[in-house]
């Protein structure tokens, strides 16, 4: 039963990944290219300045391990598909747990939509308000370890905060009604996330001259892709499971 939900989630994830890929290819890649052009410009300016000072900085041109075409094509496709399929699987597992345990969303369709909203907010949106997506040339190679650790910490804190808030909702709803329970949960989650945002260190490694519009559009493309992925997961998984449940079996 769980295995079939898992497979359904992963298949829905593949579809969500395809949509995501088309979106990112169209709106994300142009920004990546502009960011790389900026980086190249910066490197050339640096090299020229060094040359003018009489220093020979002509380092050996590093051979490209993977071509730009490959990165922007098959590489992007593979990355997005694997990511989305995996999230589809995790989504299905979360659904398998929450189904029948969440009184606020009794139908598969409603539960699926609710979980997608929660997942988008807790796993992507809130962590990325603190540590937003960055295009190439933003970010020091030396700090990759700490940046990754902080980003994952923020995601973990956000998920834990969301679980705590949802549990609190149960508790408050019992005596104060579902509306107040929801308000309490949303309020608690927001307070926890503001605290986490204040306590965790900030990172700003955007180079001085980096074009603001490119940064904005890059981050917008990143948000858009996640919105598409979570929306597709929520709607498609919900529709398929609803249909199966109408036939009499959750997994049909």
């Amino acid at each position: 039963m769980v295995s079939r939900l898992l497979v359904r989630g992963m298949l829905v994830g593949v579809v969500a990944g395809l949509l995501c890929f088309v979106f990112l290819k169209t709106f994300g890649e142009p920004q990546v290219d502009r960011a790389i052009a900026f980086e190249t410009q910066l490197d050339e300016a640096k090299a020229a300045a060094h040359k003018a000072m009489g220093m020979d900085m002509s380092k050996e041109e590093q051979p490209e391990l993977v071509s730009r075409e490959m990165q922007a094509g098959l590489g992007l496709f593979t990355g997005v598909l694997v990511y989305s399929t995996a999230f589809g699987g995790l989504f299905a597992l979360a659904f398998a747990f929450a189904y029948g345990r969440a009184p606020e969303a009794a139908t598969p369709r409603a539960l699926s939509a609710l979980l997608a909203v929660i997942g988008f907010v807790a796993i992507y949106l809130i962590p990325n308000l603190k540590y937003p997506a960055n295009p190439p040339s933003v970010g020091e190679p030396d700090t990759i370890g700490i940046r990754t650790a902080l980003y994952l910490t923020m995601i973990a804190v956000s998920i834990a905060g969301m679980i705590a808030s949802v549990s609190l909702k149960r508790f408050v709803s019992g005596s104060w009604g579902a509306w107040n329970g929801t308000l309490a949960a949303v309020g608690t989650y927001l307070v926890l996330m503001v605290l986490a945002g204040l306590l965790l260190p900030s990172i700003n490694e955007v180079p001085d001259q980096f074009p603001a519009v490119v940064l904005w559009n890059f981050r917008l493309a990143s948000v858009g892709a996640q919105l598409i992925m979570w929306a597709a997961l929520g709607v498609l998984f919900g529709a398929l499971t609803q249909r199966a449940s109408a036939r009499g079996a959750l997994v049909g």
Partner: protein
Amino acid sequence: MTHAALERVAAPTAIPLKDLVPWAIFGGLLMLLAIYFVGAEQGATSIFSGMYVHEFVHDGRHLLGFPCH
């Protein structure tokens, strides 16, 4: 939708935890491993040496929001 179907939808039965846990562990680990390879391998930490995985999924890693070099 038949009346029976409506009733079933209105009162869903939860999947017992003992059925769920093995799949959650197996599937969960597999999914997280896949996300790790897209998001962090040969960046913050490396299972395989070299930079091929990093460079291959480079654009996706940036656009999906992971820190990258």
